[in-house]
């Protein structure tokens, strides 16, 4: 691996000030950045280590919900009582993600800011829209695991298992920067809803999240008023020990709720978690029976533009949609 300098800021202000350009990456768990540096797809001379900043490592109840510090590891999120009680789909999705080792290392902040796993993006020498060039190698190349929705500019899929669930729960991302201080000198906090936090390639192919240089994710906020009435998370992946989801469906269902109260989010089929208001409307408007499942299945592929090798993701989504609704109905949990 290339040598680089490591900065050890002990405050967000210090860390933020160091990130003078995008070439100075932050490192927390390290599981993503170090791999990119080893592949020479990132070649920073300096990385900013966030591990010594205080106050980012706790999960606390705020009254309006819970606040998960950005440096909390995935495993600590998944085993936290507050999370388990209020946001069970989050626990479920983390259990499916990565490996036990990675879950002990990777942080929630790093998880939602990680770079996509596209194998072109992860190899040196492939210039594309996402890394500052133009075009997409996967669209006419090897794309079995790529996006079927929103893939015209760039066909990466969003790599975070957690992201669709955070969107479903209406999470907000808390962000701070040395640029914006209040009158007393403390850093101001900005909050962005998860749904807006994850960017599509149409918005900006080179960025996956709505962070400006110098901005740091400091926490993930989960609102107390969530839709835990009924939930389900269905995911398919080829291998059950360490593999990436090929598609996932997250459903939150509010008994007696109106159509705007439900959430249907698709994961691993588009560059950002894909909220499907049209599907939410269907589950809000009728009984969750076989007909409803069929209506959802007919609708779910709308808007998909499969590439040469990933057309299977449409029937896979139909299958997952059916499972998600059946699991909501309390049928026996399926693998």
């Amino acid at each position, binding site marked *: 691996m*290339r040598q680089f300098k490591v900065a050890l800021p002990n405050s967000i202000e210090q860390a933020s000030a160091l990130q003078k350009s995008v070439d100075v990456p932050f490192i927390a768990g390290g599981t993503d950045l170090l791999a990119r540096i080893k592949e020479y797809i990132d070649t920073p001379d300096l990385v900013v280590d966030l591990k010594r900043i205080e106050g980012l490592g706790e999960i606390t109840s705020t009254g309006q919900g819970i606040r998960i510090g950005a440096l909390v590891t995935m495993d600590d999120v998944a085993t936290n009582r507050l999370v388990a009680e209020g946001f069970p789909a989050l626990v479920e999705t983390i259990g499916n993600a990565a490996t036990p080792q990675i879950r002990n290392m990777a942080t929630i902040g790093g998880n939602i800011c990680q770079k996509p796993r596209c194998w072109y993006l992860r190899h040196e020498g492939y210039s594309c829209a996402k890394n500052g060039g133009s075009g997409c190698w996967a669209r006419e*190349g*090897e794309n079995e695991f790529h996006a079927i929705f929103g893939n015209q500019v760039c066909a990466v899929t969003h790599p975070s298992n957690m992201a669709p669930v955070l969107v479903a729960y209406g999470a907000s991302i808390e962000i701070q920067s040395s640029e914006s201080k209040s009158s007393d000198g403390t850093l101001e906090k900005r909050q962005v809803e998860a749904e807006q936090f994850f960017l599509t390639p149409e918005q900006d192919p080179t960025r996956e999240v709505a962070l400006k240089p110098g901005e740091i994710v400091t926490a993930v906020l989960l609102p107390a008023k969530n839709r835990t009435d009924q939930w389900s998370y269905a995911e398919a992946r*080829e*291998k*059950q*020990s360490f593999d990436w989801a090929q598609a996932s469906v997250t459903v939150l269902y509010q008994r007696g709720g109106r159509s705007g109260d439900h959430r249907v989010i698709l994961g691993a089929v588009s560059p950002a978690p894909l909220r499907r208001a049209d599907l939410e409307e269907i589950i809000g408007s009728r009984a969750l029976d076989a007909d409803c499942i069929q209506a959802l299945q007919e609708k779910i592929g709308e808007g998909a533009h499969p590439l040469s*090798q990933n057309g299977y993701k449409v029937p896979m989504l139909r299958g997952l949609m059916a*499972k998600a609704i059946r699991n909501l109905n309390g049928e026996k949990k*399926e693998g």
Partner: protein
Amino acid sequence: MAEEITIQVGFGDQFHDLTVRLQDGDIPPWQPDQPLDVVGQRKPRLDAVAKVTGTAKFSQDQRPDRLIHGRILRSPHGNAEILAVDLTAARKMPGVRAALTVPDTFEDSSARYAGAEVAAIAADTEQQADAAMRAIQVDYQLKEHCVTIDASMAEGAPQVGRGDQENVQRVSPRTRGRRRGQNSNPDADRQVVEQMARREKEVDAILAGSDSVVEGTFRTQVQTHAPLETHGAVCSWEDGRLVCWASTQATFGFRGEMTSDWGQVKAGECRVLSEYVGGGFGSKFSAGREGVIGALLAKEAAVPVKMMLDRAGEQTSAGNRPDSLQKMRMGVNKDGIIQALQIRSWGTPGSGIGGAGAHNDGIYKLGEIDKVEYGVRTNCGGAKAHRAPGWPQGSVALEQMMDMAAHSIGGLDPIEFRKRNDDHPIRGAEYDIARQRIGWDLPRVRGGAAPICRGVGIASNLWFSAGGGGASVLVRISKDGAVEVRNGAQDIGTGTRTVMAMVAAEELGITLEMVSTRIGDTNDPQGPMSGGSTTIGTLTPAARLAAHHAKKELLAVVAERKGWDPADLDLRKAKVIRNDGSDTGLSFKDACSLMDDDAIEVLKARPRRNYAGFSDTNAGVQAAEVEVDMETGVVRVKKMVAVADAGKLINPMTAESQVRGGVIQGVSFALHERRIMDRHKGRMLNDDLENYKILGSVDCPEIDVVLIDVYNGKSNTQVMGLGEPPIVATAAAVANAVADAIGVRVFELPITPRRVLEAIALQETPVVQPKKKGARL
């Protein structure tokens, strides 16, 4: 003098007498009624403690003084000629002590795949070697590439090879009589083509006369060996002598290459040390270019060099199982007897042409066979022997054809159909065991009738692993009672070391704990490579013979000192006993102390030939039970039953582990592993262990291993190796089980969610008309 003896051969309750003429000096095999104290016991490996504590030192862990690090620069282009390599800038980089170019070293400037070696650097630290490697200037002339079998076979495809090498070339039947330096022999070639046409016509006729003809086109993928320890060595020159701590399956082969003129290494002397090897699976028979590079860099730098591949280098360039495209037609009569089989197969061994055959004829009685094989060149890393080379891919096609044929004649039970076309004496019994243990006849939700369906599948294997000549073992009994068994061959994780010691302990009548071993050092007696599953069959008869003669010498000493009759003495349970079983009161240790010399050393070579024996092949049957999620296409193998014959079982525990290992690699091949090549730049996109998917713990099925103890009479230990046999049938059994579960066949491996969903979708839109009977392949 050759001695003629009568032995019993067979298994279970089926034994018969066989007369064997012992080769000079050999001893009779153990007999079914002979009590054995060590052989047949479940014994932990002798190196297990070193491995579980991390104290086992692999090549990767060697750290001689002043060690520096080597790195290989690889071509990033799918197909290129290396016009020039400039090392000037790289040599000036900090820490650099040696550098070389591949065109100069190997006289090869064709970088025919992305990953081909171009140059190498050695520097004080890995970071420095990395940085210097990136400073090497290379001029390439780029050429078009073909990285898949289809691209290479397409009309107007760019040329993969050089000169007049065609992309697709027939490898069997072979044109003989081609002279050296001649690219073709038109006369001989014409004869072969005529023979092929005649054969095709004959078999066409038999097929046309069969009650039923089934046909299928099958594809299997490229699987990389992916041993966890990468290829390479730590190389050190000491006073002109080369020492290599090598990750190899052939210590003596490695030494031979280092003393040859390959790459001008030409070491006058070379010692190869490989006490622990982190897996090989057939990919580590040669030192490889990385071995030569390591030796040359160490020579130039005049300090030891560690030249181990990184993971990407391992995945792209260190070997793979070739893919296959197999078209088959099988004719079968209503009585369930196979009449004929027509096979056309293609495989891609890399930019070369040989070694991509898909093997399967021999397992069943297939009637008349018409088989033509082609090699297809691609701009990809070269194939290497991979655990039963050619057999798993051939089995995947043949065994699915078997099921299709059974189905075509009124749905004959697939196991019954196999039995009617199989005359192997052991396999007949194995089918029944597999049937019962997989629960073949239990009711299941199958055929796509529910979101989760289950199915079962069956397939068979055979192998030929009784071993052969080419090994000598030294047994040393010291005056203090210490016993050491030595051979220079390696143990790549198969348990060879332990089994060799067990055989010696048995013959010496002592416990395994009293035996120490020394292996993996070419200063010790010649041993075989770990290949063809023959290592154990080759080594153990030599070990037993050496131990036998060492025992005789020890007993002669005892007889002389005590005034006893040497012919009345034997060793058992660490004591000197008389032939009637009575104890002489003398322990093994005390007996040893009677020696005048420091030790008795006996070196014995293995008898070169095997005896006719009872069965020349080891037979196996495997059955799979799978669960398929019809909605997501996800396949999970719930259970595998593996019935295996390993000849006489020395250590059932390590034998069982070998079978489990083969099954797991087979399931991984069936469901997950595949090399993914980028059509744009010709690179391997999953040159890692993230997207190159290897089956993990959660995906691992329950594996029920049934070992058949067979007294085959092939050698004095009657052992047959088990490295390869258990991987032959696994993927085929899984494929058949998937078809049973979902009611439609997936003709291409790996059976991924994508392929399952695509197969189900195809079935729902029946637009393809079945070809009419008798159509040509």
